């Protein structure tokens, strides 16, 4: 049976054409023959090991496990299709990343950070791709929709969870800016700033400080 389980999972994973969760794999079996989740997990491990030198591998993404063609083969496999894979505009990617890192977020909040209006088309595209969905409405006038990313978004970008997104750059603290400014203003009338070396030094200091001070903020960010 242990051997059969591995093969059943291999077959199901390939037939499904989409990620399968452990729960869904369990439902391939009738109750009386159903393996435990631990048995399934052990079998999944074997399934993964069995692709060691194959052109595909078993990966885990947000909605479960899937066989996936190895990235190293993309040069060749990509030639199966004439069309280039869809390219998304910077505006779309910026909007998507704001939703990913700042969810739930309203369109107004996105616009505030980006400094420009978010076109309806972008939101529509993101919703149609099922990368983004409305998770509620903010309790402010107009009750704007709040957007969040979906499991499909994670699947599509090969991620298990939002934690796996590349970390956001840290923000340098502004505290020392006012100090610098005071100095600067004392040399009244002088428009030009300090020498390049000096500013580089200031930069180093400020980022070190930021690392220390900005830690809590950063953590909050990740929530």
């Amino acid at each position, binding site marked *: 049976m242990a051997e059969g389980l591995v093969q059943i999972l291999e077959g199901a994973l390939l037939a499904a054409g989409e990620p399968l969760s452990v729960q869904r794999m369990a439902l391939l079996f009738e109750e009386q023959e159903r393996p435990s989740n631990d048995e399934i997990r052990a079998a999944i491990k074997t399934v993964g090991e069995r692709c060691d030198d194959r052109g595909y591998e078993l990966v885990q993404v947000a909605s479960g496990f899937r066989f996936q063609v190895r990235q190293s083969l993309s040069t060749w496999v990509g030639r199966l299709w004439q069309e280039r894979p869809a390219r998304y505009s910077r505006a779309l990617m910026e909007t998507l990343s704001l939703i990913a890192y700042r969810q739930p977020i309203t369109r107004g909040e996105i616009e505030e950070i*980006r400094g420009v209006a978010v076109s309806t088309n972008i939101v529509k595209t993101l919703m149609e791709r099922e990368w983004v969905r409305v998770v509620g409405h903010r309790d402010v006038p107009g009750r704007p929709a709040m957007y969040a990313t979906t499991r499909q978004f994670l699947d599509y970008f*090969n991620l298990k969870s939002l934690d796996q997104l590349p970390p*956001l750059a840290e923000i340098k603290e502004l505290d020392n800016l006012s100090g610098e400014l005071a100095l600067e203003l004392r040399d009244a009338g002088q428009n030009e700033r300090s020498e390049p070396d000096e500013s580089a030094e200031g930069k180093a200091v400020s980022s070190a400080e930021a690392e220390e001070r900005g830690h809590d903020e950063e953590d909050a960010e990740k929530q």
Partner: protein
Amino acid sequence: MRPEQAEMPFAMVRGEAVTELPKDLYIPPQALEVFLDAFEGPLDLLLYLIRRQNLDILDIDVAQITEQYMRYVELMDAMQFELAAEYLLMAAMLAEIKSRMLLPRAGDVEDEEEDPRANLVRRLQEYERFKKAAEDLEELPRLEREVWQASAAPPDLHLERPLPDIDMREVLLALSEVLRRAEMYASHHIQRESLSTRERMSEVLETLKSGGFVPFVSLFRPEEGRLGVVVTFLALMELIKESLVEIVQTEGFGPIHIKAKSE
């Protein structure tokens, strides 16, 4: 009315006019539209100007940046671009910061007043983070671009829709509802009969289904005991009453035969 090339703005770096235009800052007029399209708005343009001059955001010289920014905005105007409100708003904000920085301070002890640049710097930093995040996201291996979902043809399948499961309580609920609707609670008829009688009625009818006469006694099963006999008898009475069966006795004390009425 396209501006001449000579009218193109020269970059100002750290207070000095650059005599030679850096290649990456020089924008041929024909390319301006494309150039501006490449920006995601005023913050993006501002960031570009700062980065092109290798300035730290924390270290921006508002005066110079404003000047450069205004030149671009003027250019847009000159090109009769539909000037985005966002660009104008940013220009106004830059002008305001510039003017505040020119004003003398009340005293050098006090500096609780926030740096007028602070808000702009904060916005620029915040925007830059997400600009970077978008770039990082773009780099992630993506389905249908670097990786593909592997799939194979399924075997032949005989899909059957499983039959619905029901709970006895659902049957009861349905009955109580239908009875309530029919206002049949008062019916003695239903209450008097035990279900075993009705069940037996069905059984007797099933036995009689073949159509011929069946000996009355063969319907009784002694192994069921007295109660079973009574139930069968009641079932027969009910069947006769409902004229579902025919009962025939050819002579007094002779064998009784039963036949389904309709068969």
